[in-house]
């Protein structure tokens, strides 16, 4: 399987919003310095959005450019403007227009002590369920050669899991990706534990106490008798856990 050029992923960014009531460079810098001095580490390199809806009457590209420079000079990272509709206004700053439906307001005002997140932005995929996305940055497959014994738990974080021996009753194996079992699966196997609904479980000998994909599980009693002790794969179809013979 060849690796695609890129993957699309959802992301939530927490940033500070500077809501302007009026603007002149000296008072802007003074207040900025005062706020930063209270909690330098909180503000250091923080992403900042400038909400200029309060000063729309009195805007020009030069002022916006000036604000961006002043923010950078104070150690902030301005990423965009809210309230600007004309792209030409921002051409000098090189920053983004963040329209109101992208950026949702947090009614609370931010204080450094309580690190409340203020703004969500850049929701890359708007409709797709975030849960169906593959786990971030998959790591190399985890291989287990020994039997997984009662009371033991093995977790392959951000990885697929391959077990070359038995998983005994009372043992539990978990993976953010797929699980392959080449011995007998008698314990519990949970694939896609971070919500990857495309994860699957493959096993040579199904006698599991419980199987689960993306949190949707089945107990051994509910697994059809014809699949018991057979080699199967287990996957989600329309949010139902399906057992298929191999």
């Amino acid at each position, binding site marked *: 399987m060849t690796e695609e050029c890129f993957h699309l992923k959802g992301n939530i960014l927490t940033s500070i919003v500077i809501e302007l009531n009026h603007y002149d460079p000296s008072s802007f810098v003074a207040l900025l310095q005062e706020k930063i001095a209270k909690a330098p580490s909180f503000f250091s390199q923080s992403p900042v959005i400038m909400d200029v809806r309060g000063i729309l009457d009195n805007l020009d590209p030069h002022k916006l450019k000036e604000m961006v420079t002043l923010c950078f000079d104070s150690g902030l990272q301005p990423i965009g403007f809210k309230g600007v509709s004309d792209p030409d206004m921002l051409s000098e700053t090189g920053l983004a227009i963040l329209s109101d439906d992208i950026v949702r307001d947090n009614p609370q005002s931010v204080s450094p002590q309580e690190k409340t997140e203020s703004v969500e932005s850049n929701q890359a995929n708007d409709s797709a369920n975030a849960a169906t996305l593959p786990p971030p940055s998959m790591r190399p497959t985890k291989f287990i050669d020994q039997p997984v*014994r009662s009371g*033991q738990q093995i977790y392959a974080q951000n990885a697929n899991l391959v077990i070359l021996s038995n998983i*005994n009753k009372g043992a539990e194996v978990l993976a953010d990706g797929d699980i392959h079992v080449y011995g007998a699966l008698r314990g519990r196997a949970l694939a896609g534990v971070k919500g990857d609904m495309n994860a699957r479980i493959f096993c040579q000998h199904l006698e599991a106490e419980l199987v689960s994909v993306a949190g949707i599980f089945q107990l051994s009693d509910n697994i059809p008798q014809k699949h018991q002790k057979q080699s199967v794969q287990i996957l989600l179809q329309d949010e139902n856990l399906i057992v298929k013979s191999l």
Partner: protein
Amino acid sequence: MAKIIVVTSGKGGVGKTTTSAAIGTGLALKGFKTVIIDFDVGLRNLDLIMGCERRVVYDFVNLINGESNINQTLIKDKRCEQLYILPASQTRDKDALSQEGVERVLNELRESFDYIICDSPAGIEKGAQMALYFADEAVVVTNPEVSSVRDSDRILGILQSKSKRAEAGLEPVKEHLLLTRYSPERVKAGEMLSVSDVQDILAIPLVGVIPESEAVLKASNQGMPVVFDQQAAAGLAYMDAIGRLLGEEIEHRFLDPQKKGFFQRLLGATA
């Protein structure tokens, strides 16, 4: 330098102490200087099985606390030249065993003995973990029934993660499966797990199968380890297991239902 063998199981009542007594005695009968240590502090049983309960003066906890020395504390077996017993304390509990104390005693014993057999208490708590911590090899005693197999599985996991060898990243503890109270007739009738059922789950080498035998209970009550009874299948099976522990290749017997007596079967086989 002695080899330390822990006899363990997780579950209680499967035959750990009987096995410790049998293996320790068998090794001594083969000429190895052997000491059996009772780790079941508070529920001392080994001295009864070994028939030396009236000779206990000092115990393991006294030795750990420096209240007695090795010579005062070890009980020398009267039937077997090379065999010693280190009894547990009846009046204390498992918290009396400190890891440093156990290590010091084991190091002292290592110098003069060939084999140290640690008779583990049941369970997976401190006492059992202490008994297996310093082990080089483990005999996992299992009855052919599901709960015993599950507990043995659990204790194998602990051997692989919480023993000194595991923590130090040394060669892992060598594991041996010993099936006790095995009844081929009941296996045939489908009432008992078979050797292969148990091996399939535990996946460790089989060192012996001890048939269910009246001789074992009789031996325990008389304080006479069953290996002294060479008429009993159980005694013979234990001696076979000891041979395998020592690396000998011995075929497993007593695995099939037998109507005839053992000697009749031997004669039948050679005829």
